[in-house]
């Protein structure tokens, strides 16, 4: 038993650090460190740079054009990237639909879609949840009827993340309403430019446009865009959800946000002293740091076990629950650190590069403008990707055996 990474892994970490130093622009890094939203072009440009380095298909095997990293290498990359202020990787293409295409897609589909995911040419989004199918995903109602060599799709998807940027959407649709719920589902790849698709923004409590509802009205999807067999989609969907869960704990992001919290709490004053010296506030920061450390070691234990088998087991549910709780607690402490200056809530001040009016009194510290919105936004963490309550169902069934 040892904590230190192997020499090869440390050399790999140095290689990742070098790449980040050379390729990550200070503007993007500053946006990430300060909690500003990134635009489509920021993400696409980052994906292009990763692709040029041969790292576009993060976690993909070499035969599909990936770097062939193991889970430890992926972990190291994500940790270093987060600490450097690298953009969070948009998972829908590389981490979600790509593994499904590799495992269940045809040769033609693999050649058509995978290179464009790696290069950033296609932006993918997800069509899973529906208004009536959240945690109970298998109850989904969006219908697809085969007419000749096309499926005709009708229905509504929701909680679609960044679909306003997307070129393609992968969808679960019902093709057999007589069969048992899980047995009548098909997995389709749909071009977002298809006639009959309407994307409507859902405004969230932080004022941001991060998710959409998507309407399908007689959308025609060529049958060659079906993954695998008709009515086997649930199998592919579960496989995909397994991949969604790698790096689920977000240790690197946690470390970055904790460092930001300490920086802000050192700069904020209370009775003329730095807030970080307040015993109660310091204890809460310490608690978050200690909890993150415990989770980091738990995550490393999972990785250590995974060196032998590639699958992400039900332990990922433990990482998801604890990871989201810790991130939420750090985002709450960040907001509370600035006290009353978490109250001013101006969308324009949450954009990178916003200039405060110098002729007026200071509206509080510059870093305060995004913290309340971010706290609000981070409440999603325990809801998406399988609510934490669903995760606890998984833990009690799969690990405990109840």
């Amino acid at each position, binding site marked *: *038993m*040892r*904590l*230190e*990474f*192997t020499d090869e*892994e440390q050399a790999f970490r140095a290689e990742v650090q070098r790449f980040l130093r050379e390729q990550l622009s200070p503007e993007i890094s500053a946006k990430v460190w300060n909690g500003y939203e990134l635009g489509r072009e920021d993400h696409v440009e980052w994906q292009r740079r990763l692709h040029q380095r041969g790292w576009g298909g993060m976690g993909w095997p070499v035969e599909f054009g990936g770097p062939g990293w193991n889970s*430890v290498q992926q972990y190291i990359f994500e940790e270093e990237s987060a600490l450097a202020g690298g953009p969070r990787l948009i998972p829908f293409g590389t981490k979600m639909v790509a593994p499904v295409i590799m495992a269940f897609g045809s040769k033609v589909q693999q050649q058509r879609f995978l290179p464009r995911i790696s290069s950033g040419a296609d932006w993918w989004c997800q069509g899973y949840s529906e208004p009536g199918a959240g945690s109970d995903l298998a109850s989904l109602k969006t219908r697809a009827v085969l007419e000749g060599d096309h499926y005709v799709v009708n229905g509504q998807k929701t909680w679609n993340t960044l679909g306003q940027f997307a070129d393609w959407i992968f969808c679960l649709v019902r093709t057999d309403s007589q069969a048992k719920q899980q047995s009548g589902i098909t997995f389709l790849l749909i071009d977002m430019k298809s006639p009959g698709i309407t994307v409507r923004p859902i405004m969230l409590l932080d004022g941001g446009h991060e998710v959409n509802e998507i309407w399908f009205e007689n959308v025609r999807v060529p049958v060659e865009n079906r993954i695998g067999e008709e009515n086997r989609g649930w199998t592919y969907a579960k496989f995909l959800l397994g991949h969604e869960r790698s790096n689920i704990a977000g240790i690197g992001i946690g470390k970055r946000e904790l460092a930001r919290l*300490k920086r802000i709490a050192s700069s904020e004053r209370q009775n003329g002293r730095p807030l*970080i*010296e307040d*015993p109660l506030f*310091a*204890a809460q*920061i*310490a*608690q978050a*740091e*200690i*909890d993150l*450390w*415990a*989770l980091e*070691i*738990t995550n*490393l*234990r999972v*990785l*250590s*076990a995974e*060196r032998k088998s590639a699958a992400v087991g039900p*332990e990922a549910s*433990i990482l998801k*629950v*604890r990871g989201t709780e810790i991130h939420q607690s750090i985002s709450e402490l960040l907001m509370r650190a600035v006290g009353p200056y978490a109250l001013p809530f101006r969308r324009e001040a949450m954009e990178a590069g916003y200039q405060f009016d110098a002729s007026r009194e200071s509206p509080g510290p510059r870093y305060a403008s995004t913290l309340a919105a971010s706290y609000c936004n981070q409440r999603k963490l325990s809801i998406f990707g399988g609510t934490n*309550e669903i*995760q*606890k*169902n998984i*833990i*009690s069934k799969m*690990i*405990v*055996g*109840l």
Partner: protein
Amino acid sequence: MNFEFSDEQRQLHEVVERYLNEQYSFERFKSIKNSAAGWDSSVWRGLAELGVLAITVPAEQGGLGFGPLETLAMMGDCGRNLVLEPVLSSAVIGAAVLRAFADQKPAAELLAGIGSGEKIAVLAHFESGARYESQWVTTSARRNGDNYTLDGHKGVVMHAGAADTLLVSARTSGSPGDAQGVSLFMVPRTAPGLVLDEYPTLDGQRAADVYLKGAQVPLANRLGTEGGALPAIEAALDIGLAAVCADAVGVMQAMVDATVEYVRQRQQFGQPIGRFQVLQHRIADMLIHLEQARSMSYLAALRCTHEDIIERRRALSAAKAVIGQAARFVGQQAVQLHGGMGMTDELQVSHWFKRLTAAQLMFGDSDTHLQRFAALKRA
């Protein structure tokens, strides 16, 4: 980075697990707990024969020369089977103290005796009024010729009554709270001027408050230099902290297992209560706490002998804070989920609960370590 146990560590765990499952049933625990001595010399000999008491004794003193990971590998078993014998007090902490002074013949001999099981030596360091502050030493040692005269009061010395020798810290200079000026002495339990007020602790182990009233200790019994013993004492306490963490994780695992079994068996409203989601989620929460605690018990074992003292203290305070919080949650919820049965003396769960509660109170509770962790960051 890997979290696999070596073959030796695995074997050690399996040997201890098998021995305790055969020789240390819950019934046996209860009869030992209720005996006059509160520990069993035949079990002690059995553990000595297995080599358990010699794990951290150096090869020069006839021991196995292993470290904290091997200690961790068997401490979980001691926790689960509620071992009352002074494994932690003598074979882990006593041995750790004496290793620092193994160049002195009396210490080396005592160390060999600990490993063979013939001798028991425990550290008598913390004082009433010191809480968990290791520098707060008021007991005094005054030199007069070839002797020291010791006066003072050591609080809650684990297994003092079972010990042949107490390793007593006392101040030879400075004031309470000073790091310098603390010396360490080997004092026979039967020495004149040394009085024990013995009692059971809440988890059924034995301890004593130790009163030193002009106890005479020969110069040769001083361990190390005069006034320079605190680093060795703190190093031994850090090793003990890591070991008690491993003990607690063993107890928590046993409690989770027993609770899962109980909610499967127990029928109410015409079904096993484990079908109720509210109980399933509680058990999931217990398991999450347990796994975080297990991770931190590994960290504590890996870092408790680290030469960088800040890194060592950060890791140990983080570990004890997490494990204390986990012990509280798992212990309380295991009793809760057993319902009225969890309250009874008859079930092992109540005894595990008390052992976990005791573990929280030893070597600093979670709040103490949270504060220390926060203070270390600013240092």
